[in-house]
């Protein structure tokens, strides 16, 4: 019994094939290399931004895509066009030409507490300003929850667009000539970069 001559023909059978062209669906995403790091941006079909997350490696990227699949819709597809507005605004912001974002956001990936923290942050802390974890906790009527606020900000699904980089530790101490800016999803260097950019002092040259 020798079936190899038959299967060999099928192995050679490699027609010119192209990947399918699929329409934009429930969630469109793109990964963007920016001055602060690799960012995964995702929008819903209605144009609201649901994710702007630092994805240093493909594992982190997969984890965020899985979150989108579980909590928004499994119809997650790579499409750049629906993200044009967000990408343009991000580029303008990172080059210091814009101070605000007009793209609508959707905090569907945030928990209830996270949403109250992030909404409070957006309402209270403007461009170039900063606050501390304790102050923000007090501002949302949870004065003892500064650590929880820190955790909530750490899991911010909309980095940069919801400015969690404007929240600093209370001490603000200088350790070894480096300002302690606290933790950040994109790393302390990215946080420092954004703060310097917003302070308007030679934006960008400190990186």
């Amino acid at each position, binding site marked *: 019994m020798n*079936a190899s*001559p*038959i*299967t060999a*023909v*099928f192995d*050679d*059978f*490699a*027609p010119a*094939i*192209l*990947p*399918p*062209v*699929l*329409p934009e*669906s429930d*969630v469109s*995403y793109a990964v963007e290399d920016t001055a602060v790091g690799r960012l995964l941006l995702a929008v*819903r079909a209605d144009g*609201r931004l649901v994710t702007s997350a630092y994805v240093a490696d493909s594992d982190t990227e*997969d984890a965020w*895509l*899985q979150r*989108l*699949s*579980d*909590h*928004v*819709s*499994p*119809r*997650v*597809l*790579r499409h750049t066009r629906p993200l044009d507005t967000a990408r343009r605004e991000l580029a303008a912001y990172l080059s210091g030409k814009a101070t605000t974002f007009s793209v609508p956001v*959707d*905090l*569907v990936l945030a928990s*209830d507490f996270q949403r109250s923290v992030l909404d409070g942050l957006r309402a209270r802390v403007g461009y170039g300003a900063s606050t501390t974890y304790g102050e923000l906790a007090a501002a949302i009527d949870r004065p003892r929850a500064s650590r929880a606020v820190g955790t909530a900000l750490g899991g911010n699904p909309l980095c940069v667009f919801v400015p969690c980089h404007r929240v600093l530790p209370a001490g603000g101490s200088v350790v070894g000539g480096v300002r302690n800016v606290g933790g950040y999803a994109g790393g302390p260097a990215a946080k420092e970069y954004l703060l310097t950019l917003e302070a308007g002092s030679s934006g960008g040259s400190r990186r």
Partner: protein
Amino acid sequence: MERLTGATHTGERGDSHNRTAYRFIIVSLPPFQTLVDAHWRDVARLAHALAGPNLGDDVAQQAWTQALAAYPRLTSARNLRGWLLTITHRCAMDAHRAARRTVAHEDPASLTAAPTVDGPVAHDDGLWARVAALPDRQREAVVLKYVADLDHRGIATALDTTPAMSRRLVSDALATLRLDREELR
């Protein structure tokens, strides 16, 4: 990739306008893009093998569109490749039926003849033509086995039959092809 979270009722908070909209996730499906990236070659190969190079692209495209539409309703994340190949197979059969409906029906023989599959321009001693001339079920089974690389259980699912029947169809097809080869000598 194919993570199954069992019956963890993760309530979605819906959009901010409509907090009452809850969607209960029974299965954790991978993002659709990972399916496309992992399996588009298999789907395209199967579509070309079943429907020929003229219809192959359309069939693959149609299969992906149908899969995308049905994806959120899937109740199991197991064997997503098999699911996609089954859809592709169904689309190819639909394409054959549509092609038969559109041909001129003056010649009644064209109704009973097996749909012609234009084979690749390969030095195969006309094997491809003989595969195309096999009875429908045998051709489908043999293509699913050797082009789509499905096992007999997968073929049985795609053809809506039993694994034993799939084994039989493949073996009959191979026997016919071998016989043809003997005659040629």
